[in-house]
């Protein structure tokens, strides 16, 4: 998703100025998405250009200028909310590229690389578990749910490494030489 709909969604509740949008957006995502104020202003300007938001009151003090959703903005937001997320599967592909390249270079022994990556994923699971615990303790159920998603994704990454590991990934490259 882009920032655009996040901003529209926040403005649906009440008119806000740039800093309010930034603060509420970051708070909503529990600090997992930090935006700079410049991005917020650029986004607001584009939304205004496209007729999805409009300023409330005078344009005197830009920093304090509040925006509200236009009827088109409401429509665009509702349409976006109703759509499933259809993008391609986002993979953390760097490790895979590393493995492919290492296959050509390392004579087929990728086990150390896989083992190091698995350890990194285990450590990430540990970190995420602690974050989830913290979020629940602080009553941030929304953040805890997001962390839960991250835990499940990391678990899948770990299983992928296990699978590559057990099928001796890279050995076929060595055999061809």
């Amino acid at each position, binding site marked *: *998703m*882009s*920032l*655009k709909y996040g901003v529209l969604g926040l403005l649906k509740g009440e008119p806000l100025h740039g800093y309010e949008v930034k603060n509420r957006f970051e708070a909503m*995502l*529990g*600090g*997992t*998405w*930090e935006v700079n104020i410049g*991005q917020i202003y*650029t*986004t607001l300007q*584009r939304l205004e250009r496209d007729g999805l938001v409009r300023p409330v009151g005078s344009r005197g003090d830009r920093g304090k200028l509040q925006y509200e959703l236009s009827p088109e903005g409401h429509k665009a937001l509702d349409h976006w909310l109703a759509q499933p997320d259809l*993008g391609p599967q*986002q993979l953390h592909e760097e490790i895979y590229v590393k493995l492919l390249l290492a296959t050509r270079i390392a004579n087929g022994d990728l086990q150390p690389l896989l*083992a190091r990556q*698995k*350890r990194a*994923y*285990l*450590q*990430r*699971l*540990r*970190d*995420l*578990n*602690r*974050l989830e615990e913290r979020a629940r303790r602080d009553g941030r159920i929304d*953040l805890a749910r*997001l*962390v839960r998603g*991250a*835990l*499940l994704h990391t*678990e899948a990454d*770990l299983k992928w490494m*296990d699978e590559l*590991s*057990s099928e001796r990934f890279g050995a076929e490259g060595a055999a061809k030489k």
Partner: protein
Amino acid sequence: MTELIRLTDVTKVYQGGITGALNGLSVTIEEGEFTAIMGPSGSGKSTMLNLVAGLDRPTSGDVVVGDTDLGKLGEAGLARFRRDHIGFVFQFFYLLPNLTALENVLIPAQLKGIVAPGRALELLDRLGIKDIANSYPARLSGGQQQRVAIARALINNPTMLLADEPTGALDTHTGDQVMELLGQLHRDGQTILLVTHDAKLATRHAARVLSVMDGKIVDDARLESPERAPSEMIRVRSEEASR
């Protein structure tokens, strides 16, 4: 910390090549550690647990727990060892159906010749299920049954608590509660060995994760617990609002 468990070059061969064999496994575990043992099914992780528990004997190699070399014990000695030092929690709770929760918890103490209803009730209370002390297992939910099984495992103050997929038969929420309980016991000093195939659960409380594959330990990861900002762990964004 003091060393509690030492396995040295342990092999376990099963007739007919059944899976779960061990293939020269060595590891030491300290007192007070919470260690998770992970691996695919048939990798030997449960076999390893059973050997530490004295439920089974290795084909070769040594299993030493505390000062006791389990290989030197006869059947009666092993039974005594299990009774005095091991608390075991299984995936399927194995409660006796014609005994109440309280009576189930008391069995290991009675085997020792001790009548300990006070301690049993205290344990049930600590595990949050004192009110079902007089209920029969059939009347209890899975989570409650597993708590009773944990209380039974703890009644004799075991040197270590061994748990083999303790959340495997529970729904996610109940499983979380059982894991939370294990975490709490560990914070109170209990040595715990947890066998699981769920990496999310393994890393929740265990700071050490042993990966077992083909009857060997292929990785021994000691995890850190630093304080990190959420944005260092999760980034919720893909594309920027440049359109």
